[in-house]
């Protein structure tokens, strides 16, 4: 966390920064100090978020790069590309930033959620079925509120289903319509 004076200096610096361009991908700077695009999250902040919230080790992403396209949509990519790049897609969307509570995507959680050990809520098969269908459900959870990784057991191992929003005793499925299934 930055103190107030640094924040002010950062604000001054932001005025010198480029605006984010919605139709192209820009690679995230390593740290906030290296930022050249206003409001853009840094790689360091993204890794910190995954580590702080879900205890996903930062080394998980050693071979990957992070990119922004649109306002706050972060993509994870392991191939080669120069920045900025105008292209339909690189890798997968992994995180929504530029909002108070950053939100991981269902596809990211299904791909990398097995590295998580915190803020993972384990569901039984019937609860998992409702979650996959996009239904909200009342569930007990004594951890943090907010975005959780919902998981169930498949072939003897924990398998992430997607992202749920836990508030007021209820787990809301964030599985996008196109990914929902009646199982």
């Amino acid at each position, binding site marked *: 966390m930055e103190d107030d004076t640094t924040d002010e200096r950062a604000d001054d610096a932001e005025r010198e920064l480029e605006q984010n361009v919605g139709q192209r991908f820009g690679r995230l700077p390593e740290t906030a100090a290296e930022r050249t695009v206003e409001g853009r999250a840094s790689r360091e902040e993204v890794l910190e978020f995954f580590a702080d919230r879900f205890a996903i080790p930062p080394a998980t992403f050693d*071979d*990957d790069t992070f990119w922004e396209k649109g306002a706050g949509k972060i993509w*994870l*990519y*392991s*191939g*080669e*590309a*120069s920045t900025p*790049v*105008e*292209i*339909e*897609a*690189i*890798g*997968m*969307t992994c995180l929504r930033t530029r909002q108070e509570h950053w939100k991981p*995507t269902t*596809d990211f959680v*299904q*791909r990398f959620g097995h590295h998580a050990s915190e803020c993972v809520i384990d569901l039984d098969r019937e609860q998992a079925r409702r979650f*996959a269908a996009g239904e909200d459900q009342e569930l007990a959870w004594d951890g943090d509120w907010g975005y959780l990784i919902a998981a169930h057991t*498949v*072939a*003897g*191992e924990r*398998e992430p*289903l997607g992202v749920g929003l836990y508030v007021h005793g209820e787990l809301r499925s964030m599985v996008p319509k*196109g*990914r929902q*299934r*009646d*199982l």
Partner: protein
Amino acid sequence: MEPLERYRPIIDDFEAFLAACERPLGNAVRVNTIKTSVERATTALEEDGVAYDQADWNPRVLRLETNSPGSTWTSFHGFTHGQEEVSAVPPVVLDPRPGDRVWDCCAAPGGKATQLAALMDDRGTVVANDSNLGRISALRFNAERLGATSLAVTNDDARNYSLQRFPFDEFDRALVDAPCSCEGTIRKNPDALDNWSPDHINSVAGIQKGILRRALQATCEGGTVVYSTCTFAPEENEAVVQHALETEDCRVVDFDLGLEYAPGLAEWDGETFDAALERAARIYPHHNDTGGFFVAKLEVTA
């Protein structure tokens, strides 16, 4: 089935071929090893009570005994992807390695592009291109569902494709799974032959030649290009590869495939093809109870 009559002279056991074309195709899926192992995917199917039969030639290809292969836990988790059995052949023939730079010229809806990424352990770069913007969304959806992080999606005409946006200027391998007259999909799409005409075949063959030539140009010396279609028409298969042999520095090479198939043709309709075209594979529906397919493997020689 009338358009297929012209293949009577070149297909062994033509009646069995026609009979197979009349039979609907079963449901096949490919195990997505980016997200899980074959063993875990099959255990998950067993837990769900979905019976399956593993393909002899490729343990990652499963024939499912269900009418709704998309409504399984393995599908929800992206452990499996609905993909016709023969459609899994070209990436295996291309045989990409982790770290390679690979171009899938006509990639939508992405079954083969994600299979390439899986064969590379999702390490390297798979450029999945398609000229049809409407099909790009399906390609993106499948790439993300299957967790392919090494895949970049572009929307350009493959015939004059530019690598300018990438920090490299040639590919190690390219897959040209060309748009075609789709005769071989007749078991999946009973109306596949409705718009069949010699004019359509000739016009699509021109596009195929342009794409294959560009793929050979964009691939490094010693690199591999696989050309495939889901049609039987020699004008779209051997004749396209023949054109590439005459215009680009390349040769047709052998490959191993644990499926039954017929060799590529030596001649068709008065045109004679290079003897090396016998190294190509014509997979007919009655051979392995699949759809129809053509595959040729080329090496760039300069």
